[in-house]
């Protein structure tokens, strides 16, 4: 059978912190296939106003109710329109897309590091990891922007929050928590998602401690399926580097493959 895009009905919608919306849609096919770290390419409106789809990570799946959950921040035209949709409305979704995180039961001490809108895909990830030793560090701008704390807490006892201004949890960057942990505790893989500066730091820190890490990249997209080649990212080759594509070859890459340009 051929893959397709799905008109999925919104079953839940809530503005969880100012400008960030928690949305759930019913879609059997996507709910059945989705893996942590994969994303959806969402048409935010009909018509011409925001013509491209918007890539949004899958945050969680409720297989019983065939629900997919995603959380998005309102930034520009498209997300603004998506936020106007109501429960009961249909949205056109393409997915699940991309390669998710590499999960392996041999990793007994995984560390998950998320920053800002990068925390969302980590929820499904932590739920999919069997190890009871997992640690999760989530970073936010300030107390007001902290989201999903309860959701993570339910599935992970080693959860720490950091805020840039210290208004909640650890004061400072989430990578500081991470470095401290790597200094003293055994960690056999780091999974990260967040803004590029954070990912660079995660990557360098993991390199320093010689720990494998998987990071989820962002890039502006067109098709989302690997055909239009717009979402390029620099990936090392044996000789040099080449442009791979975030949508198809990623969004999750091994940290040591990725080259961040200055």
């Amino acid at each position, binding site marked *: 059978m*051929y*893959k*397709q*895009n799905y008109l999925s009905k919104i079953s839940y919608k809530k503005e969880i912190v100012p400008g960030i919306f928690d949305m759930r849609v019913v879609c059997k096919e996507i709910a059945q296939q989705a893996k942590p770290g994969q994303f959806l390419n969402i*048409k935010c409106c009909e018509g*011409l106003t*925001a*013509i*491209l*789809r918007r890539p949004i990570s899958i945050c969680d799946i409720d297989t019983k109710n065939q629900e997919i959950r995603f959380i998005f921040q309102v930034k520009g*035209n*498209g997300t603004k329109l998506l936020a106007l949709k109501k429960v009961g409305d249909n949205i056109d979704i*393409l997915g699940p897309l991309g390669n998710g995180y590499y999960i392996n039961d041999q990793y007994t001490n995984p560390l998950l590091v998320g920053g800002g809108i990068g925390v969302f895909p980590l929820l499904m990830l932590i739920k999919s990891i069997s190890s009871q030793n997992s640690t999760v560090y989530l970073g936010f701008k300030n107390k007001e922007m902290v989201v999903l704390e309860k959701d993570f807490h339910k599935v992970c006892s080693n959860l720490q929050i950091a805020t840039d201004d210290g208004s909640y949890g650890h004061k400072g960057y989430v990578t500081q928590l991470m470095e401290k942990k790597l200094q003293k505790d055994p960690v056999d893989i780091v999974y990260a998602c967040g803004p590029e500066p954070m990912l660079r730091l995660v990557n360098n820190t993991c390199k320093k401690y010689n720990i494998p890490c998987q990071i989820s990249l962002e*890039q*502006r*997209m*067109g*098709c989302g*399926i*690997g*055909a*239009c*080649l*717009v*979402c*390029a*990212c620099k990936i090392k080759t044996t000789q040099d580097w*080449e*442009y791979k594509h975030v949508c*198809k070859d990623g969004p999750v890459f091994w940290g040591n493959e990725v080259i961040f*340009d200055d």
Partner: protein
Amino acid sequence: MTEINMKINIAGVEWNNPVVTASGTFGFGREYGEYIDLNKLGAICVKGLTLAPRQGNQPPRIAETPAGILNSVGLQNPGVKYFVEHEIPFLKKYTSKIIANISGNTVEEYCSMAELLSDSDVDLIEMNISCPNIKEGGVAFGTNARTVNSITREVKKHCKKALMVKLSPNVTDIKEIAKAAEDGGADALSLINTLLGMVIDINTRRPILANNVGGLSGPAIKPVAVRMVWQVASVVNIPIIGMGGIMTGEDAVEFLLAGASAVAVGTANLIDPTACMKVLEGLENYMYRNNIKDIKEIIGKVEIN
């Protein structure tokens, strides 16, 4: 329902229907092959090829614009040899015709590519002299009637397949360019490639594209494309593949009426992976509704006021 005939003939190559993919928006067909039956396309035009492999431009390579997009992929591709060896065998499994789209920095490069492809299983060669996203060559060839004529003439000598020339809309007089290509021996023309555009992020104060400028495509450019197809159809005798903003069967009809013998779907694929099928179905529906038995009955049939 009556039987309708969708077959067309482009420069001696018969297509099952007039819907083709626009180069660069459909990869080499593999990805979309998971969403649609590639046998149902009239032809598949693949990602633009160069003689040597190319990495393309730095990202970001795409920006959204009102009813359109800007892209600056810059011809990322594995090179024509790789294409011949690894992609043609895949495409040959389908009944759709294969169109190779080629770009070069020099006339010699175009000629070498044409030679390499002449011995391959491609059905048509589309010579792209209108890519706005590479510094050398490309669009420079396509914006001057004299060079269009001479490059077409040269490449034709090395080309055993039907040669289609893809025209740039960034010109003062598209008719002159089209005639120059026809006169140079082009077997068909395709138009339009993208219009050169720019989007500036007012917060960072930088162009969104790393390449600063890019090619505008999508519905926004449709009226310009229809106008150019109509102008060109009125001065040449070779078939035209029309494109620029086609999203629906109705859009396709507009291009056919204007004088295109086939229609390419580009940006629409990025938005809806089944876009080509929807265009085809819309086209068929229009024909049933209007009791048109043969697609050729509407080609060029616009009545001028």
